[in-house]
Each structure stands twice: as C-alpha cells, then as structure tokens.
C-alpha cells in the first residue's frame, strides 16, 4: 500500500470520527459547532473522501 493510499485511508477514518464527534457535540451543546462550521460541508467532505477511499481500495484489490 502506497503512502498516498495510506493517507487516504487514515483521513477517511479520522473524518468519519470527526463527523461522529462533531454531531454528538452539536447534539449535546446546540450551536457549539454550527457557530463556526457548517456541518453539511463536513458531510460533503466525508462523502468525497469516502468515494476516493473506495476507488483506491478497488485499485489495490485488482493489483
């Protein structure tokens, strides 16, 4: 696994964790996150990085 794919995989994990943590924070303390960050953007970023992760994983399997 190349360093690039490794970074993608780890980034996907951490963005997944970020989505979970930030949503929990927002649920526990309303507007704590929303005041500074649009959670929709995080979700879109998560989706993009997830797609990249799937593509890179499929490439690895074919090899």
């Amino acid at each position, binding site marked *: *696994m190349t*360093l690039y794919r*490794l*970074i993608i995989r*780890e*980034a996907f*994990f*951490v963005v997944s*964790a*970020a989505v979970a*943590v*930030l949503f929990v*924070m927002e649920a526990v*303390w*309303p*507007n*704590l*996150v*929303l*005041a*500074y*960050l649009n959670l929709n953007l995080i979700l879109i970023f998560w989706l993009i990085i997830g797609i990249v992760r799937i593509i890179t994983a499929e490439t690895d399997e074919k090899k």
Partner: protein
Amino acid sequence: MEKSIKKIRYFFTLILAIVCGYFVYMGVVPTGRITYENTFDDENFFIRKLTPAERVQKPADGIQKIVGQPVYFSLYTPRTFDSAVMTFKFRNKTSFPLIEAGILSDKKIWRYRMSPIENKTLDEMSAKWDVSVTGNLSLYQKEKKYASVAEFMAAPPDLSTVAVYNAAFYPDFRMSDYVQSDALETLGSGPLRGDYQFYAYTRNEGLYFSFKIHDLNLNKDEDGIEVIVSSKDNEIKRVTLADDGNREDNGRASVARELDVIIPDLSEGAYKIEFRAGSDIITDQITTVQKKIVFLNKLWLMGDKPTDDLCCDSYRLTAQTANPAALQTILVSDQEAGGNASFRRLKLDETYKQYSLALDGKLKKIHRSLGDVVISGDGLFSFTCDTFFRPVPRKLPDDPASAGGGLRYVLADYRPPAVTPDSWSVASATFDLKNAYRENGKYSLMLSIPGLRDSDDQSDYLEISSIRADLYGTDLMSKLKKIIRL
C-alpha cells in the same frame, strides 16, 4: 510501514482533537471575555441580521442602510454573560436627533432597556450650555449655578426646570398641600389593558391598591400578573397572581379576580407601582386610598364615553389603535381653559398607525370618546388634573426645539460618539445581561431612531458599518471555585 500508519493516525487524531478543543474553548469562553463583530460583509452567526426586512436595505460594501425604525437583531452567545458593551459604527447623515439601542428585558410586556447611542439635542446643548461631568453623569446648565453634579443632586432646583436623560435621579419629594384620607376611591372611568406603571403619593395612610382584573384569553401565553412596588429603584414589595388556568387562545374571558397590594407602614413620599401583565389582562377597576396618582409612558384605555379627561404634561402625545371601531379624533386643550377651550386635534384615521402631536409640556386635558386606544407620551398622565403631580424630573424630550423652553438643567448619563477620520461615528452602549431576556441562547436587541419611517416618501436613512459585542462574564476558574465552595 506500521510506524508510518501510527504517525499518520496520531497526526490526524491530533488535528481532530485541536478542532474539537477549539469549539469547546469558544463555547466555554474560559477567560469570561469574548468579542463578536458583524461588519455586514457576510452573514454573522453571533450578531444576526437586522430585521424586519422592509426597514433595511441589503448590505452593500459592508454598509447596511436602515430606512425605518425600530429595527431588531439577535445576539447569540454560547453561554451566559454578565454584561455586554455593544459598539455601533454608524453615519447619521440625516441628523436624526436621537439614536438609541435597547435590549429586551421582559418578554411578557415586551420591554426594552434603552441606552443612548447618539443624542443630538445634548450634543447641541453641550455647545451652548455649561457642562459639568462627574463619573458617568453630565450636568448641562443653561446658566451655571452648580459647580458639580454632586452639588446639584444634594440641593436640586425646582423639578419643573430639570430633565433627565438615561440617568437615575430621584430627589426627595414632598407635597406640602397633600391631604390624606382613608376613603376608598375608584380610579379613572374605564378599564385598562395590559401593563402600566404609575406613581402614587402617600403620607401616613400607607399604600392600598385593589386591582379587579379579568383575562381575555386571546393569546396562548400564560397570563400571570406581577405588581411591583418600588422607591428610587429599590423594590419594596412584589405581589403575584397566577394565570386563570385557561392557557388556550379560545377567547373565553375569565371571571373577575382581585389582586390587593397593601403596605400599611411607609414613609411619606412617592412610590412607583408597576403592573406587569400581558395584553390579555384587563384591569376593570383600581380601588385605592391614594389621592395623587400619575401614570408613566403609556395607557391602553378601553372604556368608551369616559366621564373623566386624561391630564398630561407631555411634549409629545402619541395615540394608536388596532380597532377600526376606535378610530376617532382626540381633542387636546389647556388645563385651565374651561369653556373657552381651543382644542388641538389628533385624528386617528387608520388602525395600527401612530399619530402624534407636539405639545408645550404644560398640563393639558385629553378628551377621547372611544376606548381601545393606546395613549403614550414622554410626560406623566393622570385621570383627573386634581390628582396630577410630578414626583420625578421629566425625561429630556426628543425634539430639540421643545427642550429649550422651561428647562434650565439636564442630568444625563451620556457620552457623545467618537468620530473617525473617515466621518463615521462610533458609540457604545453597556447592557446588563443578567437581567436581560435570553431564549435559545439569544438576546434580543433593537435600534430606535425616532423620526425614521419606511412608509414616508423621504429617502432618509441611517448607515451602519459594524456592530460589535464585547461580552464580559465569569471566568472558568471563578466558576469552578464557586461550584467547589457549594
């Protein structure tokens, strides 16, 4: 490879921890101090946009034009704070005489605590009159008599020559010709709606008020009533009456109920009584032993064909009704005019529109024929001229022309705005947030610019370039110490 994975994982986790820590830090505000600023370049989460939309233009180049008043905005805070210093950067090209900011302190009676931003009347006075400054207070004297504010407060002149602006000044007030009596009398000649405040004088008879009320149940809100008796801003007694139990908006009027406020032992003087209630509450009758009673600010009069005429000493009288059946012409005459009275007319042609009349500040009689009209003004009101008295100095009138007349002294808590090199004015107002109304993390604020109307044909406006909020509250260490001590 394993080492690389760990390094990358630690790095990403560290970034996530920093991001989450930042959000928590900004939410907790451990220092107890934070600043938010809306520069009208973009939407701001903390200082929200000015509303309603028809009273403002769309911000352009970081400038928001206000074309009608009042305008409202919310201040969101992630936690509670003790005080806020709101700083406004504005340009008053139209020269509106008064700009004030206010914070909602009581939602039930929709009361804002106002603070000055710019007062052109005082700015003009400071150029012509003598000004002495002590602390936050400034004393404006037409002819210099007092060396300091303290000297003025210790031996104030005749109250009819004094006006106050944004300052608490309650000189000792005694009526030499007051005749006390224990005989109960009914006040006025018709019901009152919603909240009201009044001053009542007592010598040795104490205070006795019996309010006969009923609830219209036209709104869904709970309609509890609070009556607060105070002297010189110090609360003496608070009496409450719970809602009638019907919290629906079904219009089923409640049965008549009574709320008594009795304080037998009081030293001689004028006391302020505040009747706090929503607009569903009708006061059908007020019975009292007090012989001198004057109302402040506004009265929502309900009774048709009143037998009494209102008396007032306002510089500006305003009337408004929401009821088409209450459209009428209100007549205003001099108090002593008798049968030869020449009337000035205040014609209410449309509902929901404020009509006003400039007066000279002397005692006037107000004759109305129909109820359901809100009468307001910058002076005091009484139901008969015999019961009128003025225990406190009058407020500084909005209109600069009328302010000069009989006034010799103005006591004000006011600083003129600073002017930047690019001709913007910068002024601050400090608000106590502990007594402000906060809902869903938001404080409600307003900007008042009397004379600025969106419905008139004039193209006048006020430009705002930025609104900044400097918030001050308890820091985290003090909070923790307080919790540990508990």
